[in-house]
């Protein structure tokens, strides 16, 4: 089993590395690069959503922070690409710590809306400031080399995936996060520090998101508040994670590939019905919650490997006793 899995991983890695040699068509390579990008974004989203049980609607804000930091450092300060993208990750880490300290005290639902407000606030900031170019956006020094961006994206996403795999599936860190997800009070009683762990998870989710944002900015050479900071990044990452299977690493990858394939086909044939895509996205989220609570992966696991416990199918968490004083 172990050898087979290693062999499969090596085969996937070889396939991904050889892809640009096979895909002569620039459009297809672009699609492949974007698919990798969404895989990275979905996996990073799942650190908070699936493993810790917190929905981060500020995911797009961190994507945008990375994109804008890279763009500003490259276009205004003349930095080369690699340190600029790394600096984007550092800025995002700092932003995650600062934003996380008060908002991660909020339980589940409230954290989701607080991060949503944060992302809208940052979008307003980018619209109003001069250094970001306001609503006109920013241009980066163009570098038109599709193979380069494919490999950079592949490298960033692969490092993200394996770092998260090690931290969440092999190191105790993942178990600690799951303990918080299942019962925060219980985790506290075991001597864990939930606030610190949640902030660490937030940073762990924000940094790769921002670096991917930086690569995205340099790749498309033009960013504006709508494209880099719009809600689509959070919304789509959420659909991918829920559809694929929360609380696993393979689930988001599967979800990202499926949803992105659908998106690409949709835009290729039905581009004039832009709003329809949002409707379908919303319906897909609602429907997968009702019919696929453990995602495509969960549904498959249940049929294929009945011995393996489902990642997030523990007993429902007890509801916090609410108060209603009028």
């Amino acid at each position: 089993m172990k050898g087979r899995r290693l062999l499969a991983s090596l085969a996937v890695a070889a396939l991904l590395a050889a892809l640009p040699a096979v895909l002569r068509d620039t459009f297809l390579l672009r699609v492949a690069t974007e698919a990798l990008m969404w895989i990275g974004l979905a996996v990073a989203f799942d650190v908070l959503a699936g493993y810790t049980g917190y929905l981060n609607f500020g995911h797009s804000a961190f994507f945008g922070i990375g994109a804008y930091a890279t763009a500003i450092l490259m276009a205004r300060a003349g930095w080369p690409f690699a340190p600029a993208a790394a600096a984007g990750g550092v800025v995002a880490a700092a932003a995650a710590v600062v934003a996380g300290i008060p908002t991660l005290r909020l339980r589940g639902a409230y954290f989701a809306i607080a991060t949503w407000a944060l992302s809208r606030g940052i979008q307003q900031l980018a619209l109003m400031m001069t250094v970001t170019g306001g609503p006109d956006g920013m241009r980066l020094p163009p570098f038109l080399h599709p193979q380069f961006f494919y490999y950079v994206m592949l490298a960033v996403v692969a490092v993200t995936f394996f770092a998260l795999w090690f931290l969440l599936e092999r190191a105790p860190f993942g178990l600690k996060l799951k303990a918080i997800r299942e019962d925060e009070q219980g985790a506290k009683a075991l001597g864990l520090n939930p606030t610190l762990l949640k902030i660490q998870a937030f940073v762990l989710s924000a940094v790769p998101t921002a670096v991917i944002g930086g690569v995205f900015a340099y790749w498309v050479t033009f960013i504006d508040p709508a494209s880099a900071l719009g809600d689509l990044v959070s919304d789509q990452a959420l659909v991918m994670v829920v559809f694929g299977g929360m609380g696993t690493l393979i689930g988001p990858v599967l979800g990202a590939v499926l949803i992105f394939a659908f998106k690409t086909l949709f835009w290729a044939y039905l581009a004039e019905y832009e709003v329809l895509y949002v409707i379908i996205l919303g319906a897909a989220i609602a429907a997968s919650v009702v019919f696929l609570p453990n995602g495509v992966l969960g549904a498959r696991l249940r049929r294929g490997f009945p011995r393996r416990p489902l990642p997030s199918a523990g007993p429902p968490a007890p509801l916090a006793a609410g108060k209603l004083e009028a």
Partner: protein
Amino acid sequence: MELLPQAVTDGVMLGAIYITIAVAFSLVYGVMHVIDFAVGEWIMFGAFAGFYLNRATGIDPFALLPAVFVVFAALGWVLQPLIQRVLSGKRGNPLLMGLVFTFGLSLMFRGLAQTFFGFYSLSTPSRLSNGSFFFEKGRFFLTVSHVRLAGLAYAIAITAALQYLLKHTDFGLGVRALAQHKDAAGLMGVNNRRTSAFVYAIYVGISAMTGVLIGTIFSVSAKMGPEYTIFAFFVVVLAGMGYLAGVPAAAFLLGIIQSLFLIYLDPGYTLLAVFGVLYLILLASPTGLFRKGV
């Protein structure tokens, strides 16, 4: 300085509207433990219902409120069992799933609204729209439009009605019992499903009615939802989650912040300011302004 009384008055009247949204929102959280991400979309649908009904029949939007309430309460009544189903059953992390579900609904509603109602900003005319009271004393002056005053009266009426319902009826007793302890309330004979469905129906109805007013006082557009969802949340968190008595103060604070920004500073920064205030208050007191939240 001359504009300060105006800013505060506008803020209070705006805050009154937010109270009606936040009280119902808080009630649903207390009973169902779900944060409805679609609250802004219910407001938006209510606003469009007011706009189109007014255009079709010519009846003043204020007179349409009961009809809008009945229709939307019925919608909420029909939808609630689905949300209940997501929250219960054998799924992991039901609260997160409930949130994801209502988020999906809100995305779908917004898309549908953009498809059917277009991207334009509209406004519902009312007989009260044109009149206003004017006060002047020395350098200070104050304009209070009739329609905003009517909005204030509506907010007071709704809050009083909800207060009566919660404190002086058997239904309200059941609601409070459910919020305190679901299982114990069930053992005492409170029908969880039916009470939750009623609460959700009342909430959707009130949100839609408030939407009609917002469409009359401000404007109606398919993209208005998220702003009100964020404001509803702001008020509820600031008040302390589930602490209804804190809602008015938090709502007035939000209204005044917003109107001060509108008059003195750049309105483009409103959401940033809202987040900033929320951030500072949560940093100092995570359980809301009165330290009474859950």
